[in-house]
């Protein structure tokens, strides 16, 4: 699931579901999911992961199966329920700013 601004940027349109379905081969990790997302939506490159370091941008968080995956390694395998498409991987913008 993507924040509204990234859905708009990706051309998904206002009011559409926040959910994007991706085909990702094993292993299903944050890195392989984001690689697949950026391959499908190249305009999202640099918006979730910093160019250069490849690290999560500071004001974004990742959640899977009600657990915070923000500080897990990019290459750690995501829960099976996410890999199998039964549960979403959430990319959430911090509630901050003006």
């Amino acid at each position: 699931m993507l924040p509204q601004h990234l859905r708009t940027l990706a051309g998904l349109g206002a009011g559409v579901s926040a959910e994007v379905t991706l085909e990702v081969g094993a292993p299903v990790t944050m890195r392989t999911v984001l690689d697949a997302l950026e391959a499908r939506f190249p305009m999202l490159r640099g918006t979730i992961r910093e160019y250069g370091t490849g690290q999560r941008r500071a004001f974004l968080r990742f959640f899977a199966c009600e657990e915070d995956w923000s500080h897990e390694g990019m290459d750690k395998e995501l829960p099976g329920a996410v890999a199998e498409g039964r549960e979403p991987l959430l990319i959430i913008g911090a509630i901050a700013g003006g």
Partner: protein
Amino acid sequence: MSKVRVLVGTKKGAFILSADGKRDKWEVSGPFFAGWEIYHVKGSAVDPNRLYASQSSGWFGQMIQRSDDGGTTWAPVGNKFAYEGVPGTHQWYDGTAHPWEFKRVWHLEPGLSDADTVYAGVEDAALFKSADAGATWEELAGLRGHGSGPHWQPGAGGMCLHTIILDPSNAERMYIAISAAGAFRTDDGGKAWKPINKGLVSNTIPDPTAEVGHCVHHVAMHKARPDVLYMQKHWDIMRSDNAGDNWHEVSGNLPTDFGFVIDVHAHEPETLYVVPIKSDSEHFVPDGKLRVYRSRTGGNEWEALTKGLPQKDCYVNVLRDAMAVDSLDECGVYFGTSGGQVYASADAGDNWTPIVRDLPAVLSVEVQTLA
């Protein structure tokens, strides 16, 4: 009949304000990129329908948007701004070494002879160039590699390269300005750069006449006289008659010489505009009065322009890229405020009217004069 198109960047999106040559009835379109900070929008002089916009966010980073139809539709282009080589360090606010980190694009300057060429001034300060309409970006690393980079320090708004001026008479010459490093010039298309800060005096830095370290807020040039430059420094209005090699102060009778914007009349190279701001600790106009000051003598002698502008209880700021002039026979002048107003004068500043009053805080204003 001629038309004008005013391109407005705000803290929460971009807006396009359009009118015919009379400039009395305006259409407002937008917000474009709603919710994002739009530091700058500028059109190409080669192809006026080619617009570039800098779109950024603390959450999602930097985007560059391009329009090929005058702002009706937009598409994201390249947003990878990678410093050449090992970026190294500059000074942090406390004087310690701090790694160079890309944060955002402050200013986009389309090329004068090719609509696909565009320059980007970024924070942390560096200059990038795209030759493919924004698809890819390459740093002109000679600027940061000039040797003084480790001594550059951020101003309060960050260490930004905010001003890019292309010399219309010499394709190899370009000026840039950085807060707080100063002004620089290249005479070989961006390979080598020299600081051009002789004559600047900044009493807030350890060496007030240092070669670099000055908080230059903005620089303006008239295209017919590219060797004459005007500068709004943190404090002081400065003028150079030799392409920045030497500067002298022309603040004259201004009520305060702190400010951000400075611009030049489209047809009168000695007519300048500034908006004095009370001080570096009180970023609003003095005495609750919004006054544009005009000099018709290239500086030193200034007159307040107030007709149509609020003269009581006004406490707005006008940021460095938030003033522009059109090139109609009777020069139009435009500026935007931190309160979300965009004011226009169709008679070189004698009379002002608000085009819009309630936009988000205005970050930048550019204008296109269309046939």
